[in-house]
């Protein structure tokens, strides 16, 4: 990483940092070498924002999210620091928490929702018991908590009486996923990390849930990290978008700017490759080449073998972050020329 740091690109001066990630690397020892699945990543997450983290499967995005909760499983090795700034009180060094403190941190400060709702529930326990046990385990007021649970379920278009009395298998996938979101919010965390929370669902349910997430965000002022490979899903949801490629961030900025005027050639190629209903069909094209293997990431810029702008400099030197403007940064030497090299259209000429 060079002298222009991602830290200098906060979207506004009034924003306040809730998570500060510095030089995080996650490595796994494998037979054929060390697999570095997060490569020296630094970024700040702002209080009350919805940040979308986008990348292909295996780009390191889920592993990055796991580091925020110190949830990287053995034999993964994490280095670097993750600092959490609570609304009141002292900053928390997340990677340094003991087991008990971590458990409290994970539910009461930062909650996690992933796509496998079914695996998150105990099949022998009804939903009400899930909520009650969670409240009891964290020493919360059960009556008040259950009242909040009912509110949350109602806001997620669920009938609290029906859902609380049901066993997990009696609910459809969409209902389970919404129930899991309600459960993760019952202890009123400040941050919620969602890793493909709608991945296993139908389009309509996906879109409905992202709408509900936006409403909950607005109502409770929660900071949301939404991790997905499905870029369109967060286009209308995220305040900022961070694009991951080959185990590091390549572009970060306000969602509008990243979508409309992407600076990194990879972001541009990705926007061109994502099927959607508005782009003229002839404008869509796949990204040439293959994603890199975590055991042997290309030297210099990791995207250079696939990049039409690559020069010898890109093959030798890691570009580090270059400021596109005060709010946006891209890890590319040639970002100013990317628009001319990789064109894309988000909607057709006949639309609006």
């Amino acid at each position, binding site marked *: 990483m060079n002298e222009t740091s991602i830290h200098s690109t906060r979207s506004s001066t009034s924003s306040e940092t809730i998570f500060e990630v510095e030089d995080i690397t996650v490595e796994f020892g494998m037979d054929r070498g060390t697999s570095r699945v997060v490569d020296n990543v630094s970024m700040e997450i702002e209080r009350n924002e919805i940040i979308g983290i986008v990348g292909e499967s295996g780009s390191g995005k889920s592993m990055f999210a796991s580091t925020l909760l110190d949830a990287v499983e053995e034999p993964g090795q994490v280095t670097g620091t993750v600092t959490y700034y609570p609304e009141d009180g002292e900053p928390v060094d997340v990677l340094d928490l003991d087991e008990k403190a971590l458990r409290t941190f994970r539910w009461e400060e930062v909650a996690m929702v992933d796509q496998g709702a079914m695996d998150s529930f105990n099949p022998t326990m009804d939903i009400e018991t899930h909520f009650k046990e969670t409240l009891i385990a964290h020493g919360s007021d059960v009556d008040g908590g259950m009242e909040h649970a009912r509110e949350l379920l109602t806001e997620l278009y669920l009938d609290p009486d029906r859902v609380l009395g049901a066993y997990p298998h009696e609910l459809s996938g969409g209902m389970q996923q919404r129930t899991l979101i309600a459960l993760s919010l019952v202890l009123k965390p400040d941050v919620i990390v969602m890793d493909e929370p709608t991945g296993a669902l139908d389009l*309509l349910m996906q879109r409905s849930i992202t709408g509900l997430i936006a409403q909950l965000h607005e109502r409770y002022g929660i900071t949301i990290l939404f991790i997905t490979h499905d870029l369109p899903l967060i286009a209308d949801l995220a305040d900022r978008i961070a694009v991951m490629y080959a185990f590091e961030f390549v572009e970060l900025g306000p969602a509008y700017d990243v979508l409309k005027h992407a600076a990194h050639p990879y972001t541009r190629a990705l926007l061109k490759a994502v099927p959607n209903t508005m782009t003229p069909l002839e404008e869509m094209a796949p990204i040439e080449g293959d994603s890199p293997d975590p055991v042997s990431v290309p030297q210099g810029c990791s995207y250079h073998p696939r990049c039409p702008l690559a020069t010898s400099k890109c093959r030798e030197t890691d570009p580090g972050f270059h400021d596109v403007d005060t709010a946006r940064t891209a890890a590319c030497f040639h970002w100013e020329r990317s628009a001319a090299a990789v064109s894309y259209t988000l909607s057709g000429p006949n639309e*609006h």
Partner: protein
Amino acid sequence: MARTTDSTDERSTDRASTGANDSVVSLEDVRVHFDETGLIDGLRGEDETVRAVDGVSIDIPENEIIALVGESGCGKTTLGKVAVGLQRPTSGTVTYRGQDIWDAKEGNGDPAIPYPEIREALQIIHQDPGSSLNPNRTVLTSLLVPLKLTEPELGPNQREQRVYQLLEYLGMKPSEDYAHRYPHQLSGGEQQRVVLGRALLMSPDVILADEAVSALDVSLRVEMMDLMHDLQSVFDTSFVFVSHDFANARYFAGTVGGKIGVMYLGELVEFGPAEEVIRDPQHPYTKVLSWATPTLDPDLAAEESMDPPVREIDIPDPIDPPSGCRFHTRCPEARAVCETTTPELVATDTDRQTACFRMDETHEYWDSQPITGGNDG
């Protein structure tokens, strides 16, 4: 029953079809009802029949691409399986070049086309390519099996060369390297290519691609669909592409002038050229799918409502589908008549069909009382 009432050409417009007469596979008033009545339900006298497909007629011409879209449980996969002879309809018929597939299978009458030939002509590729490849077989072995069946006259060396050629065609180079790999040594996209290649070795007339790109990263889907198009033009294959994703269906069918069929609770509610269905959806349910497909353009997204254009988010139970128009319990446009009367699939344009009273300007619907209410009302 999904039938149109256009009378100008009774023979070709009373079903979802392109109007072409060179159908490879024809489905006629197909119903698939699964009896899910368990012992206890049976004792209680409760009937638990799931109406997965309920009265669909559709023609699949040569070299056509038809994308079937809808939510889980709408019957799109079941209908696709009927089309390739993997699911027996509980009523209605499915024919391959005029021969009833199930008559051929069971030797009823004197089949004009023997069943093994039909079986070879209709292939399927699944959503999860990993589970459809034998984990103990190399790519080469997996691909040699169908080749032995279809090209018995080839020698072992020739067959192997054929596999290498195919792998190159599928973009898996160096092909000799890929040929000796096991499925777990391939990425999801590469596994899907092998499955596609294996299906193509049978020189099929129709391939059912069941959520074939849904498991792939969004960034890899266009590439996979482009490959399927390339192969379609080489092998003269028709595709039935089943997807819950409107954007994928649009790309797969739209780039090659194919059709989209929208299904809801076992019925076909709209059918027509892909781009027309996407750009100008006629059925309120198609509009819901269109809303559900997020747009990438933040300017367009800002104009869209975050609230779903349905009165209920959750899909009704297919065991007890709503009366009248099955969509009336969720439809924002529903009126009293929709509760009692079932709209038929009617021609609304030269090659478009929609099952909604709103397409008929003189229908009693317009004098009927609007239905309101529902969770999301």
